[in-house]
């Protein structure tokens, strides 16, 4: 079968890897460099800590890295995951957390050596799991713990009142101040407001830029496929308040826009455009290779676009666009309070994944259908993720909505970070059936 488009590998591969490695190196060397080492969740307001000279060990990517071991070092993986089972933590709890706790209980850090000595845990509870996760971590390690409570906005379409929104802004802003004072008191270190302002500014930019990169994938042919995107989005998850991450995304956006201009495709055959949902089974990314072999390009997912992407709703266009940063809106951040308010507001107005965790309902469906429309989606492959109640919220209703809209949709049960709950053979067999129903034959 003839290739429809030309394709080239992305230039920024190695750079992405390099930045990722630097983050883990920073964590490993934090202690000897006298930096604070903080543990917490990615969706927490990690920019909060930028007022300190610190390294941040982000929990979810760590849990995913453990899942990767399943292929590279199965024996080690089994040790970790079973350490958690044997301690009595039920197997249906968040699998990121179970992988993390397993390492902690064994005191084995998968990048080598014992699990790093955290100074304290800082977490923003955007789902039920996170706030309890780090409570358990702080108990095991006997370290202090601070958790912010994030009450997200309801989806704009629900007509939530301005007063309620204002209350939520205030609630989170006050907690940000509370958190900073708590950290200063706990560590006895100075909190640098300049650096804090810089950190949040970077967070706004990198998340907004990532949204722009995702938006570029509306183009036909799609410049990026989901598997590639997943290795880029992780930088925003790990270290979005860092300058180098902002710069990276700026370069990436330029390259992607160039690909769009020159019709350089992620999949030269592009016969069918898919979206997925929820985290993928990290140890089973071959899934995307199988799709490719049928000429299918997976464009991303509500999750991939939004976990660390800033999207704002436009009531005029009734759609979501990459969010404009405070700078772009001409707002200047001078004080700690300016930064705190801006950070609270940014999280509340642009964090759609977090909204999906608390209020899926009509809002998340509308968001997904918006993606179907703007990204020219032909079909969907939904990962019913047993490992994450948060991102799986509303999945079945979304399936119903997709089918109703005439979008062929296949589901498969799995788990983003526990291979024991994912049956690759049966999943691939089901995909074969699905492709038949779409009239797609294997190309290679």
């Amino acid at each position: 079968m003839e290739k429809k488009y030309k394709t080239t590998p992305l230039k920024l591969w190695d750079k992405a890897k390099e930045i990722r490695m630097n983050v883990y190196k920073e964590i490993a060397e934090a202690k000897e460099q006298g930096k604070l080492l903080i543990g917490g969740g990615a969706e927490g307001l990690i920019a909060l800590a930028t007022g300190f000279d610190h390294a941040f060990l982000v929990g979810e990517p760590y849990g995913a890295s453990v899942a990767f071991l399943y292929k590279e070092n199965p024996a080690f993986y089994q040790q970790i995951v079973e350490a958690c089972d044997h301690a009595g933590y039920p197997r249906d709890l968040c699998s990121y957390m179970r992988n993390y706790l397993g390492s902690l209980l064994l005191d084995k850090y998968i990048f080598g050596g014992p699990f790093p000595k955290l100074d304290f845990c800082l977490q923003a509870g955007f789902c039920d799991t996170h706030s309890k996760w780090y409570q358990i971590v702080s108990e095991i390690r006997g370290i202090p713990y601070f958790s912010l409570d994030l009450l997200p906005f309801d989806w704009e379409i629900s007509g939530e009142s301005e007063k309620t929104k204002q209350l939520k802004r205030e609630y989170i802003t006050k907690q940000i101040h509370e958190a900073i004072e708590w950290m200063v008191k706990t560590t006895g270190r100075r909190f640098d407001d300049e650096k804090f302002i810089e950190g949040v500014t970077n967070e706004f930019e990198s998340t907004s830029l990532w949204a722009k990169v995702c938006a570029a994938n509306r183009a036909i042919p799609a410049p990026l496929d989901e598997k590639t995107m997943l290795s880029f989005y992780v930088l925003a998850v790990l270290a979005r308040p860092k300058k180098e991450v902002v710069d990276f995304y700026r370069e990436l956006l330029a390259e992607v826009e160039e690909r769009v201009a020159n019709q350089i495709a992620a999949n030269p055959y592009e016969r069918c455009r898919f979206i997925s949902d929820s985290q993928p089974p990290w140890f089973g990314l071959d899934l995307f290779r199988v799709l490719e072999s049928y000429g299918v390009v997976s464009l991303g997912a509500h999750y991939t676009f939004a976990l660390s992407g800033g999207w704002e709703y436009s009531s005029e266009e009734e759609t979501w666009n990459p969010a404009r940063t405070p700078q772009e809106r001409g707002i200047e951040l001078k004080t700690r309070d300016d930064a705190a308010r801006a950070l609270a507001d940014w999280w509340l107005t642009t964090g759609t994944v977090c909204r999906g965790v608390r209020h899926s309902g009509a809002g998340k469906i509308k968001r997904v259908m918006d993606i179907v429309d703007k990204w020219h989606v032909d079909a969907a492959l939904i990962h019913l993720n047993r490992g994450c109640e948060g991102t799986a919220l509303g999945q079945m209703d979304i399936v119903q909505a997709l089918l109703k809209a005439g979008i062929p949709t296949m589901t498969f049960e799995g788990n983003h970070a526990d291979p024991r709950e994912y049956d690759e053979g049966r999943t691939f067999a089901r995909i074969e059936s699905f492709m038949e129903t779409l009239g797609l034959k294997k190309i290679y």
Partner: protein
Amino acid sequence: MTSQQVEYWRWDEGNWADPNKNWKEAKVISAGVDIGSVSTQAVIMTDGELYAYANTRSGYNSRESANKAIGMALNGTNLKLENLDFTVGTGYGRVKVPFANKAITEIACHARGANFMYGPTVRTVLDMGGQDLKVIRCDGKGKVENFLMNEKCAAGTGRGMEVIADLLKVPIGKVGELSFEVDEEPPPVSTTCVVFAKTEALGLLKGGWPVPKVLAAYCSAMAHRVYSQIMTVGIQQDFVITGGIAKNIGVVKRLEKELGFEFFKKTNIDTQLAGAIGAALFAKGLYEKQGRR
């Protein structure tokens, strides 16, 4: 499955009586009947010593199973049912033993039975039945201190082994030995889920695996599943196994490997009798305490 076919999952029934004992000299004749989902055992004891027993299949009707088992046990002795001073029923059908004076759970009975069979140093008892997997912690008398049973999933239980034996046409009693007739230990099968065990085994066979290799892969998967359950309770020595699975060295040896020590405790008594023995011992104690009720 039609009844004409050989049912490889079935194990042999049987009974035994001690020719050197005279029950007429005994102060207390106690009995225990253990009605499990798959098998039923009856044990008769004279002054707390094993006198006679029978091991049979559980039928649809628990009362009949109980009568059949005790009948087989009495058979070969010249005892009659009315000679039994006190009888305790245990197992799933514990309340359905028509001639029993009391019902006690198999948890308590297995702990006490294991204590009798293996001695007072036993602290952890593993019992595996048709769909159940029990890990029991007990003291020097065989009193239960703590126990755990598998929740909501039958993976790795006895039923799975029966399915495999049936599929591979290997008598259940032979599974263990045969599983060692491999040059090197294969990786365990990916799931001990009873539903999928069949296809996976079939897949391996189609992939050219010899029967012993498939058995080895299944036994080690089962051993690991059991290991995980034990670890959640925490193991304390001496560790012993009761129930049918104890007869399957294919699982036992591999479990020893996982746990990192050998179950040096041995017994010459049929491990499937543990529950019934415990019941008979309780029966003796209760009779001495309160007489027949």
